């Protein structure tokens, strides 16, 4: 790596100042304040909101007020408002407080506070992602257990429908944050040679917003579940129980969190790159992460808006989506999918660029066609905004638009093809260093091509008329989001684990897990393709006996995936505690995160690096750096 080290002149505050209220704020105070405020508001609302003719709206109003109170209380209790309050009075945190917030000398406690150090936030995100995947995985097992039973029907329908909704919602949140959360926060700033994110406090904010959702989500179980599925289609959602209010709050807060994180990551990547790191020397992972969060910036507010409208429908009879009083189900579908299709690329692109970051290291070749990769990424980002209505071919909304949306959808195959070209060009004539991250590269290629091809089938209007709403679609998007997306994230985990924890991820357990997950995955979703082609609808708790074999196969495959994932979890736990100690650069990689010591010191670099080439100089004769 041809990077130059210079010392940065930094003045340190010598004056000793005390640390104010923030010393006393942590997860515990957040829960207490949140719960107290929630109970208080709940009492007041129950008293104040009079019982009118429409008692059901009253319940929605009370539940929403309570959730809002919890949310505000939690954010106060965690300390999110300390800084903004000081600003309001023309002050700010003093240096000691800023260092306290950054988690200096705090040990394990810093993970339970409003800590601003991007590395702490990254680890927090990693744990949260693993937890969400565990919950989502358990729910997937419930789904498959029900469907593995001869013609289904093991679990009562309203419970089953909510399980499907939860599985979808939790997995969508998990997959959206799975790379930009842990690695976008921990790795990206170091990768570009920065000391922290552009807005460290926003970074903490984005994480603790997500944590504030968890009790709201859990409350759904007591409030009747979310039997309308994660897509929250209206008017079905309007008809649903109080649990739907939880869903609405979850989405709204999640949208705020992702907007905050998106603005932060984008600004960081734009403004805080090391000296000499112009765009052609910036690692591809930075481009991909920025593309992903930047795409989320316009997409999620639309989703948030749709949920605000849905909340108004439920609580106040606003009738945005109620066709009986002039509302429109098509309006909801449009708003949802305007978010919904960009969202799959929000998930997919970071996975693919993580894999692109891994491939040159393990193939020991420069990344093939860096420029084409960028064209591919931004081509996808640009087109993905114009494809949403391919989810609505059969909605009857605007049949005349089916042709144009088929065009834009099929055009996306061109930039997607470029992503394949880049990875294939990199491994061609390269080495194949068969470590865990490289296994993921191959698994992603295999799964992503199947996910892509089946997507092309569905882009065709008459084909979609036959297959829409069937298990074929379910299998297709699992191939893209899980087969490609999650596989990329697991590769990223294996790749960056040594940097984040200081230890290597156990190779043996990792391999056992890898094969179980990938074989189980193929079995599960081939079974699902089969029953989908044969005509089994999605999201059904019981099915025609003719689909029995395919479902049984899927269930067996799903159990295999789950066991494989548990082995990976075991690998993560054992390796984190007492795995083999990793050096600062165990893979011999060239990006900047591998140039700092492990564990990474508080402000990442003793001296900030200067970059003179791109980080893919494998096989290129190096001139001795001065």
């Amino acid at each position: 790596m041809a990077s130059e080290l210079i010392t940065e002149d930094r003045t340190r505050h010598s004056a000793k100042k005390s640390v104010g209220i923030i010393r006393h704020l942590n997860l515990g105070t957040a829960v207490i304040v949140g719960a107290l405020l929630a109970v208080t508001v709940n009492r007041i609302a129950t008293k104040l909101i009079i019982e009118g003719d429409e008692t059901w709206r009253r319940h929605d109003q009370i539940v929403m007020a309570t959730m809002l109170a919890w949310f505000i209380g939690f954010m106060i209790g965690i300390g999110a408002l300390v800084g903004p309050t000081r600003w309001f009075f023309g002050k700010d945190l003093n240096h000691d407080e800023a260092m306290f917030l950054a988690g200096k000398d705090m040990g394990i406690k810093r993970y339970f506070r409003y800590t601003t150090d991007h590395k702490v936030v990254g680890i927090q995100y990693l744990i949260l992602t693993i937890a969400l995947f565990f919950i989502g995985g358990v729910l997937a097992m419930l789904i498959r257990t029900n469907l593995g039973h001869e013609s289904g029907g093991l679990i009562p329908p309203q419970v089953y429908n909510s399980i499907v909704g939860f599985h979808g919602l939790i997995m969508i949140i998990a997959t959206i944050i799975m790379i930009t959360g842990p690695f976008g926060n921990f790795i990206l700033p170091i990768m570009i040679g920065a000391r922290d994110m552009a807005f460290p406090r926003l970074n903490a904010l984005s994480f603790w917003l997500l944590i504030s959702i968890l009790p709201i989500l859990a409350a759904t179980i007591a409030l009747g579940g979310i039997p309308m599925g994660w897509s929250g289609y209206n008017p079905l959602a309007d008809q649903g129980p109080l649990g739907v209010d939880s869903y609405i709050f979850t989405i709204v807060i999640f949208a705020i969190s992702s907007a905050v994180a998106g603005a932060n990551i984008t600004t960081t990547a734009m403004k805080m790159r090391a000296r000499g790191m112009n765009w052609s020397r910036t690692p591809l992972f930075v481009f991909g992460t920025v593309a992903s969060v930047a795409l989320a910036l316009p997409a999620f507010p639309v989703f948030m808006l749709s949920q605000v409208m849905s909340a108004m429908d439920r609580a106040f009879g606003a009738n945005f989506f109620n066709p009986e009083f002039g509302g429109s189900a098509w309006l909801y579908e449009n708003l949802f999918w305007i978010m919904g299709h960009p969202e799959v690329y929000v998930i997919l692109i970071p996975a693919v660029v993580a894999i692109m970051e891994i491939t040159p290291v393990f193939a020991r070749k420069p990344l093939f066609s860096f420029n084409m990769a960028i064209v591919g990424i931004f081509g996808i980002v640009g087109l993905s905004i114009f494809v949403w209505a391919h989810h609505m071919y059969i909605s009857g909304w605007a049949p005349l638009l089916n042709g144009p949306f088929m065009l834009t959808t099929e055009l996306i195959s061109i930039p997607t093809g470029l992503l394949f070209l880049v990875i294939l060009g990199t491994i061609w004539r390269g080495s194949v260093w068969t470590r865990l991250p490289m296994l993921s590269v191959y698994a992603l290629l295999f799964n992503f091509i199947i996910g892509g091809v089946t997507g092309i089938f569905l882009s065709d209007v008459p084909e979609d008329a036959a297959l829409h709403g069937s298990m074929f679609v379910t299998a297709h998007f699992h191939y893209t989001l899980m087969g490609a997306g999650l596989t990329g994230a697991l590769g990223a985990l294996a790749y960056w684990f040594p940097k984040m924890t200081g230890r290597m991820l156990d190779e043996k357990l990792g391999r056992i897990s890898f094969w179980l997950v990938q074989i189980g995955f193929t079995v599960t979703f081939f079974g699902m393709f089969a029953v989908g082609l044969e005509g089994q609808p999605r999201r059904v708790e019981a099915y025609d006996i003719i689909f029995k074999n395919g479902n049984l196969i899927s269930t067996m495959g799903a159990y295999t995936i789950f066991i494989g994932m548990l082995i990976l979890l075991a690998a993560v736990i054992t390796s984190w505690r007492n795995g083999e100690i990793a050096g600062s650069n165990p893979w011999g990689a060239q990006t900047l995160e591998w140039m700092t010591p492990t564990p990474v010191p508080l402000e990442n670099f003793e001296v900030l690096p200067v970059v003179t080439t791109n980080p893919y100089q494998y096989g290129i004769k190096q001139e001795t750096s001065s």
Partner: protein
Amino acid sequence: MWLMQMLSETGEDTTKQSGNRVSSFLSRRDVQQAIRAWVFWAVTLGGLGYLFIPHLMADSASKTMDIVKSTFMAFYYTSVPVAAVVLAIATQTVLHNRHTGTAPPPDDNPAIETNQMANIVWVVISSALCVFLLVWGLVVDNVVAEPSRAANATVVNVTGQQWIWTFNYPDAHKDTSELYLPVDQPVIFKVQSKDVTHAFWIVQMGIKINANRGEITETAVTPNKIGVFDVRCAELCGLLHAHMQTRVHVVSKADYEKWLANQGSVEQWPAS
């Protein structure tokens, strides 16, 4: 030509004559291996698809479904060579360039940073495939729309409500909970919902359209096979969505007339 230059730069055969570059490229050992892998994958995938997919798909009871099935196969066969390229390169590299051990492999690979020719070929081929898909899609979309333009089409009003389908024959003033259709006669379904959004799907006829409250959506098909087929709801519509199914009986024209004329209760149980 740049492609060949770049690829053969450090290859086993150093170039001889410019006219022979293609053949010299093709005769390189790794290229040969990749080609063999490509043939293997293309034949395997194509063969598996040929053997299994037609049996996996629902039976066809209309020209629309025939088109759906042939489109599926056409797209499948089109994607097989493309997928085979991906798998071939993956296979070749894994089989022949594997490096095991805990130390990184030495950087003795050709430092190919890009290849203009490969980029161009790739984009041109994927664009051509894209145009093919689009043209195919537009053509068949027009063909499956034929029944909706038929002058003599029968109209059936379809009502979805939680969690049951009912059908109304406006010309015959008849209401039923199962569909009866005459064979080889175009039929237009005018679909609506009484409550949430449903999707009206005749599985073996390859048609589907959402049922919305307050809107009438249309789809059309010409059944071409006598038999009993399945209507299923394809949009999650609440508690008993899984059970929102009924039958389509496609009968001969004579039987259909007889059925229409029968003004009494035609749904006597047990049905058989």
